[in-house]
Structures are given as structure tokens and as C-alpha cells.
């Protein structure tokens, strides 16, 4: 994985201030997390926040403080893109570089930041004040272009707003002041809404309509764990993160596993480009989420839970901490929940640090354990042996929220919505070329066309269902239904109109997967690079018809031999466009002349040698004379 900590050409990295950090400060940070090696990500995040980098000497101290070896610490520190081994600016601006942002004027915004700050993307200013970099989708596609400025999010950037923001920062204003002059006096919820709009366009019956407080939980305490699981099973609820595994069954497996401890983890690492539904739930329904987790804890007998929040959503940390604190105060978390003796459950918030792969169940658990976010070998499955080896239920934010509502209104109520096999409602996060991007809560079973009418995208030419790892469909498939059996999606719907270049989109998505592959297994680490190169051949018009077979064959190999879901789905942008937009590929590929490859450019291949030898080629320079 690329670490994104390169400093630019010629810009001297400011001397790392960490060199001066007294040992006891690092020791104090370690102590704050109980010198627990499983809290490595928290420790490193705090060091990064405070000293702007994790210097080699610091790593030694952290290793000593947690009883690990230096290389183990470095393994974690170098894995996550929000952690840096070289000093970052006091203000780090991360421009969201998703394809939707690019189509919404990211270039102009980037140019303004570069001009005002006097550095290029990827650089840190010489005085150590600013770093400017890009990052994949930060979950703001409905209000693109967006950027993170330290822990603050700026949305709907234009060259004008970018200029005033950059100038204000340069004049010494804090990122928080960019959001509001009265930032300090706002509640966490108000702060979040000042930064990021919810854009709820259609509230459905289950999640975004009126929700009574903790009604599901109070029902759950009067039920046995087995009854809770049966209710969730009967509702037909399936995981909302993308894979669609039956939630009740997952809980049953975990509950039936005999172990000293059980864990419940909420996956709020919503990294799939174009997905931002969990962002809205975390902002508007945090209590419902925690309620759902608490119910799951009762069902499987867990006393501890983790809410894994993606690093990009750090602006929601305060809000969530406040919710957890409030629930502890009200006796809804902690010991003897709702006065029920023996029903103990508490949740800790674990912040990620910018790694898409951590949305994968196993990688997420690794990350919670303070390890690099690498997937685990399956089996054993997390329900059998997950976090620290204990049976663990990992569910998506939306799944837990649904579960809480099901316990309130009953399985039948939920089961009656949607279609056979896909029950209930689903949050769709729709963005791209449409009039009303945002969140739509709808029962399963709507066609893509109905959805496009709702969002005002009648001129849509291509729709990416389920983000890059999903399917790209053309107009002739708009009659297809959004269900698990037809077009499955974790919620992302990205709309492209006829003016967009399909191959450009595919190339972007492949570069995304190249960047986000954890690098553990070769098919994914290397194969995606080859796929990306092959696509760029098509874009340059240098591809042969047989390159289409190559794409299919290599994609097949990657899917079959990768270790986790990332590699198993990363060729999808190519495979689904080959299937649904075949003319795009055939239009730009032509047979090579005499079997000579056009992609091999002899002139650029010998250019370096020409300069070193200070002579021209007697074979390939036509005007060669001795």
C-alpha cells in the first residue's frame, strides 16, 4: 500500500519535531492505552496527531512501551495512509480524489490550493505549516468536491470557496474556524451538520422515519437471546454492507460458539467509493445504532463491543463519544443495562486511519487488534474465532439499526417489506450526474429506472451499482431490480451521463484498487497493476483485440486466487463494462500491423541511452550519419 508520505521534489521536509519529544511523553501516551499492543492504532494516531509524524526514534519508544518489536510498530505505522513516517504539515489538507469529485471540478479546486499555499499536491511546505495531498473517496460524493482539513471536512468546494479557505488557513485561522466562527459553542451534532449535509431525500419507514427511543432494546431485555436471534432470522434481515449474509444466522453461529468472551463489532468503515449511507445514520441515528449493537450483544452474550469508525469520519468522533457517554449515564450501556442483572455491555470507539481494506471483516478485526489491516485466512470465520480469537459478530451500521427496529416492530412487519429474498428497506446513497444526490431509503425491489427518475437523472447513460466492486450497467439494464438476487449493492449508486468516458472511469477505479490493495497476496497486489496498465493501453488507442481476452483471463485469475473480497471484486469494473459496454472496448482496439506491437515505443526506449552515449541510433534514427 502506498503510504502517501512522499514529500515533493525539492521541498525539504521540515525537521521532525519528534526528535525532541521526551521519552516520557510517548510513555504517557502508551500508558493511556494501558500499554496494550492491541491499541497500537490509537497510540499511533495520537502520536501522529500530536507530533505530525511517527519518527523512527518514536517507534523504538512505542515498541518498548507496548512490548513489541520495532518492526511490528513500523509495520502498522507504514500500513495506514493517515499515518506518516515523515513530518506532515500542521494543517494537512486531503482533497477527495474520487471520480465524482473529478467530474465536479476537483482540478480547479486543487489548482487554487496549490496556488495559494505555494506547494504542489503531495508536498509539505518548507515551514511545515501545510501538507496538500489527495485521498480516495471520503464519503462526501453527494456534496463533491470535498476535502478534509485535519479533522474538519469541507464540502461543495468551488474555486472561490477553496480560495477563501486556503487564504484563511494561511492567515492563521484554525480549520475549525473555517466551519463556523462559533465552532466552540456548537454541539457535536451541530458541528457535524455545519460541515456535512445529510441530504436525506426520501425517508423510509424503518430507519429515517420517526424512530422511538430504545423501543427495540426494551423489548429485547424481556426476551431470551434465542428469541432475539429467532426474531432477527424470521425478519429476513441480510447484511447491508454489501455481502448480504443473513444476519440472524451470523448471530446464531456466534452465540452457539462456546467461549470465554464474545464480541460485537460495528463496521463503520464505509470505504466503497460512492457510499455515504452510514455517514447519515451515524449522524442522525447514532442511538439506534448503539441500541442495535446492544441487542446483538444480548443475543450472542457479548460484554464488549467496538465501533470501528473510518478515519475519514473523524469529524463524527465527538458526536459518537457523546452518544456513548450519554447512554452509559442513562444505564443503556455499562453494567446491568435497563436494570437487568448480568446484562453488561460497553462499546469502545476505534478510529481507522485511511485504509479501504479495513472494511473487509477480517482486515477490520486485524485493525482493531492493533495490527496492519490485513485480511485473515478464512476459515475460521469471525463468528467462530474473530477479535483476539473470540467469537465475533461484525455487522454494518445499517444492519444494526435495522435489527433494533425489528426488535421494536417485529419480524413480520419487516419481512412484509421488500421482495422475496430481500426483505425490508435499504439506504441508497446516490451521487454523480443527477439533480438530487443524497440518501434514499426505499424497500428492496425498485428498478434502476425508477430510482433514476426519483433522483432526476433521466439522461443517465451508465450506472455503477454497488461502487467499483459492484456492477456498471448500461441503459438496456435499467429495468433490473435492486435486490440481492438481481443487482446487489451495499448502497452505492453512481450515475454517469452520456458525456462521461467509461474507460476513464474504469481506469480510475483500477487505480483505486491498486492503491488500496493491502499487498498481502500476489494476484491482487500485482494483478491489479497489470489490469490498470492494460486499461491505459485501451485509453491510448494502443490495444489489440486480443487484449480483451487478456483482460478477461487475468481478471478470472485474480478473482479465483485472491485471498479476500478486495481481489475477488477488483476486476469487476473491467468485467462489467466488457459485458455491458462491449462497443467501448472494440471501438478503441485494432489489430496490430505485421504482428509488431504499437505499445512498444522504440524511440522512448532508447532515449536515455542516446543521451548517455551522446550519439544517435544507427538503426532507428533515419537521419543517422557517422
Amino acid at each position, binding site marked *: 500500500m502506498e503510504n502517501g508520505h512522499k514529500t515533493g521534489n525539492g521541498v525539504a521536509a521540515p525537521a521532525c519535531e519528534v526528535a525532541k519529544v521526551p521519552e516520557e511523553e510517548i510513555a504517557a501516551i502508551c500508558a493511556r492505552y494501558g500499554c496494550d499492543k492491541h491499541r497500537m492504532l490509537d497510540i499511533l494516531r495520537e502520536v501522529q496527531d500530536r507530533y505530525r509524524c511517527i519518527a523512527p526514534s518514536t517507534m523504538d519508544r512505542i515498541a518498548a512501551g507496548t512490548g513489541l518489536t520495532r518492526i511490528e510498530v513500523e509495520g502498522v505505522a507504514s500500513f495506514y495512509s493517515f499515518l506518516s513516517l515523515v513530518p506532515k504539515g500542521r494543517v494537512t489538507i486531503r482533497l477527495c480524489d474520487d471520480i465524482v469529485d473529478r467530474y465536479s471540478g476537483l482540478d480547479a479546486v486543487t489548482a487554487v490550493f496549490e496556488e495559494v499555499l505555494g506547494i504542489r499536491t503531495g508536498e509539505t511546505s518548507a515551514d511545515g505549516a501545510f501538507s496538500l495531498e489527495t485521498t480516495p473517496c471520503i464519503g462526501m460524493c453527494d456534496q463533491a468536491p470535498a476535502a478534509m482539513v485535519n479533522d474538519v471536512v469541507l464540502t461543495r468546494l468551488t474555486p472561490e470557496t477553496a480560495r477563501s479557505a486556503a487564504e484563511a488557513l494561511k492567515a492563521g485561522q484554525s480549520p475549525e474556524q473555517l466551519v463556523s466562527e462559533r465552532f466552540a459553542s456548537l454541539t457535536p451534532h451541530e458541528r457535524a451538520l455545519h460541515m456535512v449535509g445529510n441530504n436525506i431525500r426520501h425517508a423510509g419507514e424503518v430507519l429515517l422515519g420517526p424512530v422511538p427511543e430504545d423501543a427495540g432494546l426494551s423489548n429485547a431485555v424481556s426476551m431470551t437471546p434465542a428469541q432475539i436471534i429467532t426474531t432477527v432470522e424470521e425478519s429476513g434481515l441480510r447484511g447491508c454492507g454489501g455481502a448480504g449474509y443473513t444476519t440472524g444466522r451470523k448471530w446464531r453461529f456466534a452465540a452457539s460458539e462456546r467461549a470465554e468472551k464474545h464480541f460485537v463489532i460495528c463496521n463503520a468503515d464505509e470505504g466503497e467509493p460512492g457510499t455515504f449511507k452510514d455517514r447519515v445514520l451515524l449522524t442522525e441515528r447514532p442511538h439506534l445504532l448503539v441500541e442495535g449493537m446492544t441487542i446483538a450483544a444480548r443475543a450472542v452474550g457479548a460484554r464488549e463491543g467496538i465501533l470501528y469508525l473510518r478515519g475519514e469520519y473523524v469529524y463524527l468522533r465527538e458526536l459518537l463519544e457523546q452518544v456513548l457517554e450519554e447512554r452509559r449515564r442513562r444505564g443503556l450501556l455499562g453494567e446491568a443495562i435497563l436494570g437487568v442483572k448480568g446484562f453488561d455491555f460497553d462499546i469502545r470507539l476505534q478510529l481507522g486511519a485511511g485504509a479501504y481494506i479495513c472494511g473487509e471483516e477480517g482486515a477490520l478485526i486485524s485493525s482493531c487488534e492493533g495490527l496492519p489491516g490485513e485480511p485473515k485466512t478464512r476459515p475460521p470465520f469471525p463468528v467462530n474465532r474473530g477479535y483476539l480469537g473470540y467469537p465475533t459478530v461484525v455487522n454494518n451500521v445499517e444492519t444494526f439499526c435495522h435489527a433494533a427496529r425489528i426488535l421494536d416492530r417485529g419480524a413480520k412487519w419487516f419481512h412484509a417489506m421488500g421482495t422475496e429474498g430481500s426483505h425490508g428497506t435499504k439506504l441508497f446513497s446516490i451521487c454523480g450526474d443527477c439533480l438530487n444526490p443524497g440518501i434514499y431509503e426505499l424497500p428492496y425491489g425498485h428498478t434502476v429506472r425508477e430510482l433514476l427518475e426519483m433522483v432526476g437523472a433521466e439522461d443517465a447513460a451508465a450506472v455503477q451499482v454497488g461502487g467499483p466492486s459492484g456492477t456498471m450497467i448500461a441503459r438496456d439494464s435499467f429495468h433490473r431490480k435492486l435486490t440481492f438476487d438481481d443487482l446487489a449493492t451495499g448502497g452505492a449508486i453512481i450515475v454517469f451521463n452520456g458525456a462521461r468516458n467509461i474507460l476513464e472511469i474504469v481506469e480510475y477505479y483500477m487505480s483505486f484498487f491498486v492503491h488500496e490493495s493491502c499487498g498481502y497476496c500476489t494476484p491482487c497486489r500485482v494483478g491489479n497493476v497489470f489490469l490498470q496498465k492494460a486499461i491505459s493501453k485501451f485509453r491510448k488507442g494502443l490495444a489489440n483485440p486480443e487484449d480483451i481476452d487478456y483482460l478477461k483471463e487475468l481478471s478470472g485469475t485474480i478473482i479465483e486466487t485472491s485471498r479476500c473480497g478486495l481481489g475477488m471484486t477488483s476486476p469487476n469494473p473491467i468485467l462489467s463494462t466488457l459485458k455491458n459496454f462491449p462497443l467501448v472496448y472494440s471501438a478503441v482496439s485494432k489489430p496490430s500491423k505485421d504482428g509488431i506491437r504499437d505499445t512498444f515505443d522504440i524511440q522512448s526506449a532508447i532515449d*536515455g541511452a542516446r543521451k*548517455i552515449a551522446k550519439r544517435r541510433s544507427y538503426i532507428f534514427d533515419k537521419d543517422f550519419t557517422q
Partner: protein
Amino acid sequence: MSELPKARIATASLAGCFGCHMAILDIDERLIDLMKLVDVDRSPLTDKKRFTQRCDIGIIEGGCCNEENVHVLHDFRRNCDVLIALGQCAIMGGLPAMRNAIMHSDAPLRECLDEAYITGKYIRNTTHHVPNDPALPLLLDEVYPCSQVVEIDYQIPGCAPSGDIIFDTLAKLLTGKFRGFERDMIKFD
């Protein structure tokens, strides 16, 4: 003696060590059988430097590390109906492609030449110059497998491929019976 017209084959060694050509000779006494089926045109084995006529099969050892390799390979592609990459260097770049691993340098080729001729620990080069005779072909920026420069029809793996696999493949290709390799022939451990 068959009445069929003999097939014409040509061979060349590009950025290789000539090991694959030695392996061709490992066909041993079956060479006599093979020669009943083929005439050898341009090849180091015949010392013919140019094509005398169009060939049915061209066999390439080695990848492309300099402009002359590219030139020869183009020539083979234009003059042969079927082109075979013989051995790991032709297929993947092989050992010479180790220099492609000099990646994090602004001038990898310069770095490679300097180490090979000037700064290397075990170099005894009293001139302290990188050879630069005008007759030397210019090096490419990196070493390319043949399939990146021209279309390749078949690849015979191995370093070097055994005489058996070379004979077997050629014999089958010439009689139109080639259906892929036997497992034991491409099992190397």
C-alpha cells in the same frame, strides 16, 4: 524420406546467454530426425546472418535489451509465420531483466552502467569509461520480454528448456499435433 516439402526455421539469440541454443543441440541424435523435417535458414547454427526466404518458424532466445535486439525481432516477426519464444529470457526478460529492478533512481540506466563498468566493487576497468564504441547498439531503458515488442505465437518455458521439450514441441508443431505441453515437461522441481 517424406515427400512433404521441408519446413524452414530460423533462430536468433537476443539478450540471452546462448544456453537455449545449446539446449537445441541437446536434442542430440534426434537432430537427424529433425533435419529430415526442416531446413535451417537464418541462425547462429548455420551462421547465416540474413533471411534467404520466408520461414515457417522463427525461434527466439533472449529478450530485448538493446536496439539491435528489437531490430532483429522485428525482422523475425516480418519473415516468419510462427514465432516461438524459447526460454525464460525470451518469455519474461529473465536474468538480464534484473536491471529493471533499479527503479527508485532518476537515471536507472546510468546507474546500471556505472556499477557494471566503473563503481562496482570487483571492477578492474583501467579506462574508467563506459564502453561507447559507435558500433555498439544503444541500450533500451529496460529489458523487455519479446511479447511486449512483437506478437509471439508460442512460448517454450525453461532455463534452459530441455532438449526433450524443444524436440517434442517442434515435432508436434511441424505435424500440426501440438496441443500444449505434457505436465512432466514443464514441472521443474
